[in-house]
């Protein structure tokens, strides 16, 4: 119903010839642009006619800096792209280096990587859950989600020694072995996850206000999503069953049994459901990986100065926010000739103008939250 009303508002707003349109400058300092995104809105009343995003307020010259560093030195920089999912950033960086240099990763290391990456996905989705509801005006879920995410952060601190920018995954394996304390914590976390998820569902998921706010808002069709290069939960919400962990497997993922949740409507609510379902699937993957954790080395023997042969590589993984890719060019020396990061947030934002057209500003905020951007990754 709300959607039809916005449609009729849109129809009326468009039929008026002399409607007083104006420019509204949202951001870079705005509570819910998730950092320093700047949107230039052409509005009519509260109806958004067109959006012109401006990036670069968090640009840190990643590509230019890394060209002067060796491959190993470049890895800690990748922590800073998506500071809510640093592990996956390390993962794609190490994956690119290993493909380029042909490094064999031990099996135990791969398993540890999978466990860590899925925990990171859960943490990132939890944080998204909090911020999404915060954008919609609910304050409690944010605190609950952050309090829950804190457990994962503790696990990562126990493993890597850092709480935000864990430089944990290294070319050829991981930094330290997964010790029994962290293992116990992971097991506890996984075991009490279902209760937490039930609490979240009771708290907000069935809430009628949330449903009317999210349902049918920011609809994106599947063909349009593919045309826009959308990836991750936003793409899956449009009905496309595309997940790099299944379609282009890149680690030991083929050995685990998990499902790829998809929805058909492509609205914000279906993105919501996808992410909530992905948390469950990630928990299942972690459980399987823990149950069959092989013994062995946690890190291959890597020369101090990696000298990959000449050539290019495009490595991509399924990060929490979509396909996180890395195009790396080696000229045979110890330093990469060119490094490019394919940011999922930036490319998901390409469709923002399309899916928010004719929606009121309140919906724009909801849609922005449901795309789940991190400006660190958008600007690199």
């Amino acid at each position, binding site marked *: 119903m709300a959607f039809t009303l916005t449609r009729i508002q849109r129809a009326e707003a468009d039929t008026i010839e002399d409607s007083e349109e104006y420019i509204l400058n949202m951001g870079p300092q705005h509570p819910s642009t998730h950092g320093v995104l700047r949107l230039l809105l052409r509005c009519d009343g509260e109806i958004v006619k067109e959006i012109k995003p401006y990036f670069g307020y968090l640009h840190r010259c990643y590509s230019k800096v890394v060209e002067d*560093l060796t491959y*190993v*030195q470049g890895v*800690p*920089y990748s*922590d800073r792209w998506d500071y809510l999912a640093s592990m996956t950033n390390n993962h794609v960086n190490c994956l690119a280096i290993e493909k380029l240099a042909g490094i064999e990763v031990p099996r135990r290391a791969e398993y540890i990587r999978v466990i860590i990456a899925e925990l990171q996905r859960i943490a990132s989705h939890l944080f998204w859950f909090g911020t999404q509801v915060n954008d919609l005006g609910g304050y*409690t879920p944010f605190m*609950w989600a952050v*309090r829950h995410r804190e457990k994962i952060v*503790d696990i990562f*601190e*126990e493993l*890597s*020694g*850092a709480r935000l*920018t864990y*430089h944990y995954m*290294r070319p050829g394996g991981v*930094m*330290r*072995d*997964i*010790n*029994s*304390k962290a*293992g116990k914590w992971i*097991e506890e976390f*996984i*075991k009490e*996850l*279902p*209760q937490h998820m*039930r*609490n979240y569902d*009771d*708290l*907000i*998921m*069935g*809430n*009628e*206000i949330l*449903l009317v706010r999210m349902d049918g808002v920011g609809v994106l069709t599947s063909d349009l999503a593919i045309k826009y290069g959308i990836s991750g939960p936003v793409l899956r919400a449009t009905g496309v069953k595309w997940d790099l962990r299944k379609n282009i497997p890149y680690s030991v993922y083929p050995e685990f049994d998990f499902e790829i949740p998809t929805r058909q409507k492509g609205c914000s609510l279906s993105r919501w459901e996808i992410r909530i379902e992905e948390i*469950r699937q990630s*928990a*299942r993957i972690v*459980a*399987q990986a*823990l*149950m*069959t*954790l*092989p*013994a062995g*080395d*946690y*890190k291959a*023997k*890597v020369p*101090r100065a990696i000298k990959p042969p000449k050539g290019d590589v495009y490595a991509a993984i399924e990060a929490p926010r979509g396909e996180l890719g890395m195009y790396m060019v080696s000229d045979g020396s110890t330093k990469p000739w060119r490094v490019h990061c394919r940011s999922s947030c930036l490319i998901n934002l390409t469709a923002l103008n399309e899916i928010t057209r004719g929606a009121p500003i309140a919906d724009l905020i909801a849609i922005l939250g449901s795309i789940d951007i991190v400006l660190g990754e958008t600007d690199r």
Partner: protein
Amino acid sequence: MIEKDQNIAPTQKHLDQPIGSDFDQNLLSFLDSEFKKRKTLDAILGRFVPLWGILKGLNITRKAIFAPKSTIQYPEQKLPVAKGFRGQHVLLTDPHSEQLCICCGSCVNICPVNCIEIKFEQAKETSKRKRDLIEYNVDLTKCLFCNLCAEICPEFCIILGPKYEYSDITRGLGNLMVTKETIERRATNEEYDEILAKKGPKKSAATGDTTKAKPEN
């Protein structure tokens, strides 16, 4: 059991033994059963009672209001820092405050942000070591705390310690650019034993200094 790989973290021994697959094998089935759990009464009421979701939400916040709180009163109480935490640098000397660093400059070279600078001079013939470390400055405003310097160090004498309260209002030398005097401390005996254990097998390595391999005690 300790790898001879040079990139191994020096704090590996501090941590517990690495685990095998000693987790309970019913984890997955437990998860599936838990996720499948549905409250039928809830579903029925949700269909027929208007605004049932809102009432549920109110109920669960009511529970939370009277639940025990999880705040840590920071300056008074502090959370324990994990072993192997990557905080401010620590420059270890041996238990007799004899300098362990051989001024090879590996940490300076590996640092991605060039936040370490060292000054040394040739030692006199009387002393066992070749070089005397004069200055060891770490610029914390630049540092990424990536732990690479600690992993590359052939003497395992520079590590990232557990100190995380190093914020300051000025950036100058001694405040956020910590000096040798600030970060240097004696290694405890077990730390020193671990360092010896790591160095022992690779006495003849080109990077290590053979004369310093076995100090007297």
